[in-house]
């Protein structure tokens, strides 16, 4: 005991010192940056509200994608790294459907119905692709060690990216613009872009539906039972494979819808568009507590808002030149911080239980 104690204590001390230094640094940046920015009065209240609304709309998209990560993790303890690509397939399906609806003129006469249809279409396509992926790439590997399906997921991710690249080319497609959805709405005296509000409302509606399904339907209860104990669940007469496929399909449907909403805001669709939102949504899922459904929703919103408000609030006034370039850095620093200081996430439970 005494023999190892000195060097061990030294490393302990160094690690803890580093962690504390890191914490203090982040807190200092946040506090000083916030103080300086607010006292400089550079942004008006309207601008702050605009930042927050953008953050919420971006965050609700992250939240929708994060649900798929968290649900699959909850049931299989596996990170489905192909989930970002499922989001991409949703955006593509929505793009083709919306382009077709626009060419027939339906989209401009009935923008909301058209939008709803393109979301539903994207959800169906994404869910079907995810079900195929589960059947081909994950199910045969069930029972293998945890690293194996993870590698398979990375393979699926590349496969989907390059399959879409092969079919539709490396270019960027411009999402059709819907005239009726351009412009602002005036909400409590503040002008807010219509699409942002549509995105937030649709995303929240979708999350409410998912929450209802998981909490109150027979299938949802079976999903929660399977995530706790597969053997006992099958003793109840629950077909575990069917529940797992349904989980993939539901998560993918959310990601597919997110793809359409993302394309509404950014107006672009491309084969590599799933990577960054996929990783961000994974960050959001970890942030909220992976495996936890309300956690994914909260994590997505928190991440979206911090990304949107953070550069202006924390970074700009401490002398960083173009703080918006660092918005991704904020997201990934959050991921590192969460993993270091609260690995179970905001709403998560003990991770160690099954790890």
């Amino acid at each position, binding site marked *: 005991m005494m023999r190892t104690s000195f060097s061990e204590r030294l490393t302990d001390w160094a690690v803890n010192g580093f962690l504390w230094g890191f914490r203090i640094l982040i807190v200092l940046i946040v506090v000083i940056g916030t103080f300086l920015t607010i006292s400089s009065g550079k942004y008006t209240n309207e601008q702050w509200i605009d930042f927050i609304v953008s953050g919420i709309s971006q965050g609700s998209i992250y939240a929708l994608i994060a649900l798929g990560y968290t649900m699959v993790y909850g049931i299989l303890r596996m990170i489905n790294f192909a989930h970002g690509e499922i989001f991409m397939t949703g955006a593509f399906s929505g793009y083709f459907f919306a382009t077709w609806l626009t060419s027939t003129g339906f989209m401009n006469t009935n923008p909301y119905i058209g939008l709803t249809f393109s979301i539903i279409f994207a959800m169906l396509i994404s869910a079907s692709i995810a079900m195929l992926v589960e059947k081909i790439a994950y199910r045969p590997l069930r029972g293998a060690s945890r690293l194996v399906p993870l590698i398979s997921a990375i393979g699926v991710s590349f496969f989907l990216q390059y399959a879409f690249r092969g079919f539709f080319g490396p270019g960027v497609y411009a999402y059709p613009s819907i005239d009726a959805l351009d412009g602002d709405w005036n909400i409590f005296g503040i002008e807010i872009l219509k699409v942002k509000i549509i995105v937030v409302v649709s995303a929240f509606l979708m999350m409410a539906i998912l929450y209802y399904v998981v909490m109150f339907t*027979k299938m949802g*209860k*079976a999903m*929660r*039972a399977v995530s*706790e*104990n597969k*053997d*006992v*669940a*099958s*003793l*109840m*007469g*629950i*077909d*575990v494979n069917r529940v797992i496929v349904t989980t993939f399909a539901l998560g993918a449907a959310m990601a597919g819808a997110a793809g359409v909403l993302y394309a509404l805001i950014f107006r672009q669709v491309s084969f590599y568009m799933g990577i960054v939102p996929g990783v961000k949504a994974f960050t959001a899922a970890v942030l909220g507590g992976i495996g936890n459904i309300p956690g994914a929703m909260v994590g997505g919103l928190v991440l979206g808002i911090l990304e949107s408000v953070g550069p202006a609030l924390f970074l700009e006034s401490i002398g960083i030149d173009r703080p918006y370039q660092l918005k991704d850095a904020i997201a990934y620093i959050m991921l590192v911080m969460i993993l270091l200081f609260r690995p179970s996430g905001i709403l998560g439970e003990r991770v160690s239980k099954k790890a």
Partner: protein
Amino acid sequence: MSTLTIDNIHTYYGNIHALRGISLKIEKGEIVTLIGGNGAGKTTTLRTISGLLKPREGNISLDGEDLLKYPAHEVVYKGVSMVPEGRGVFARLTVLENLEMGAFSRKSKEELNHNLEKMFTLFPRLKERRTQTAGTLSGGEQQMLATGRALMANPTVLLMDEPSMGLAPVLVELIFDIIKKINEDGTTILLVEQNALMALSIANRGYVLQTGEITLTDTAQNLKNNPMVQKAYLGME
């Protein structure tokens, strides 16, 4: 008329030969107990009957119908329910949701409500706690929940794995009274127990299992008086 027939089953874990040709016969309305030491294969036997493990050889049939061709989640539909070892309640689901999961194989809403009523009269404690998550229940309450959950499927045969495990003596008596009551209401029971004395006191017949083989079978009364059983499982000299 035999209800559940297990004929010469051999079950393996990988290369480990866990059950070496076990045969059991459980008649309708009986309580049959399976006693034996740790690692004798008691739990393996129940897991094989319920379909969680598939034997390499042998037959299992219920009223003449082959059970081995069904996966675990379909065996329930044939009338065999199991109360797993360590209770296996879904800790994050509420008591009510756990019971609903037990009735997963039952399609009609009336049947579900009727069975819920039945469980709440059998286990009034569960009614009080129906909105609590199962993880907050005490061990005895969890055992009641696991039992009630298995009964929600209206089984003809109930497999029970160590219902007394980890319970205070008072609760053990209570659980065994309930098992007797369930049996009197017409459910056939195969009971696996470490607590051989309690098990033999409510069972009609018993089997002694040793390293994957049945070494002895007799009426419960005779087993209780058998010197070998007394020495090995009842702690008597």
